[in-house]
């Protein structure tokens, strides 16, 4: 029984340390802004993809012009210089999951992140050709594009069940 108190005390300290490491506490504001910017970029991706998806699913009527515009946005987004968003040290392992879901592996030597970004550009380029060219061609171009998004997330963003 003698051990009880120190053990509980130790657990408390460990608990406090563990929560400070992962909670919403302050990080360097410059890094926080960079992370916010890349998440915003990702949300713009999702927003534009959303229009194409809604047409592909048949939730809204196919509109060639609107579809082509959304595809061009996606393509432009994928060609932007993102180097300032992805600053070294802004990974989940360093900052905790509350700040970012981006995995350290992005910055590893021989990381394939660049290839993934290129694959995205290939598929958004294909979508700019396809989107205005009828519903069926839009639907077909969705598969590879969705895979380009998901494939990068699979390897470089932490999974919810992990």
């Amino acid at each position, binding site marked *: 029984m003698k051990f009880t108190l120190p053990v509980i005390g130790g657990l408390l300290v460990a608990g406090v340390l563990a929560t400070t490491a992962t909670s919403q506490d302050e990080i360097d504001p410059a890094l926080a802004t960079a992370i916010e910017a890349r998440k915003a970029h990702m949300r713009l991706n999702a927003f534009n993809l959303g229009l194409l*998806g809604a047409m*592909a699913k048949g939730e809204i009527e196919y509109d060639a012009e609107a579809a082509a515009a959304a595809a061009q946005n996606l393509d432009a987004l994928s060609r932007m210089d993102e180097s300032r968003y992805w600053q070294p040290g802004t990974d989940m392992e360093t900052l905790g999951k509350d700040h970012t879901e981006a995995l350290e592996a992005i910055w590893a030597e021989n990381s394939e992140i660049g290839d993934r970004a290129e694959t995205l550009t290939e598929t958004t380029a294909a979508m700019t050709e396809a989107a205005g060219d009828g519903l069926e061609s839009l639907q077909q171009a969705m598969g590879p594009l969705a895979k380009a*998004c998901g494939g990068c997330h699979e390897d470089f963003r932490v999974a*919810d*069940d*992990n």
Partner: protein
Amino acid sequence: MKRILGLLIILALLGGAAFWFLTAPQRADPDLFAGVSGDAERGETIFWAGGCASCHAAPGAKGDDRLVLAGGYRIVSPFGTFVTPNISPSGEGMAGWSVEDLGNALLHGTSPDGRHYYPSFPYGTYQHIEPQDIADLKAFLDTLPPSDTADAPHEVGFPFTIRRGVGLWKRVNMTSDWVLQEATTPELERGRYLVEALGHCAECHTPRDMTGGLDRSQWMAGAPNPSGKGRIPAITPDKLDWSATDIAYYLETGLTPDYDSAGGQMVSVIANMGHLTKEDRTAIAAYLKALPQDG
């Protein structure tokens, strides 16, 4: 004193006999497969719907590499870690297996040499597969590339090392009843078959009871992740407010209704579902929408 001891011994022997009897591995009636011949093309659909590649392809395999069923995928559970075997058509895998052997494995969890498989091989689901589909699946598996990777041992401790005990697990947990008892349209019937006989969706999305069996009263109501981290979401109609179209599109592309992409173990399930027809994915969505609401 002696009499009591004698009585105990008799009881133990009787208990042992009962254990032996209750735990005997079952086999399929050989007539089930008599005159059934397999069609590899149809078998491919069964293969993807059954998700065999998710567990039997080498970990991390993508694209066509998912057709090399070398095994080695690790399934972490409270009972230990199971490592999937090689089931490619090679000496290390399933070379020489008959359709009936595969039938015994899928329908009863029984190996060609008459031992129990562990339920981490989801035969609790596959017991519903039609004999014709098993023959088709076998024909497809025979067309896949061989791999000579040797099987790795499971990492389970006593008493789970005793396979015979799995017989009791089967007695308690294997039931041939459908969960969705009323499938009122051909689409729902197809969806039920895809989910309850093939898709083993419940293996992740349904919580387990103390024996590690699925708690069928909480069908698809979400569950802790067996590997211990995070939770697998509920997909019953009261908890998942996606439209049937959203669900079908998610299974096709991995895109959620807010156009983020699916993550975790669901990624590999979606890679399988992408090989099905649109009608089949729509049937799965209709099935999920028809499930009883969890109170």
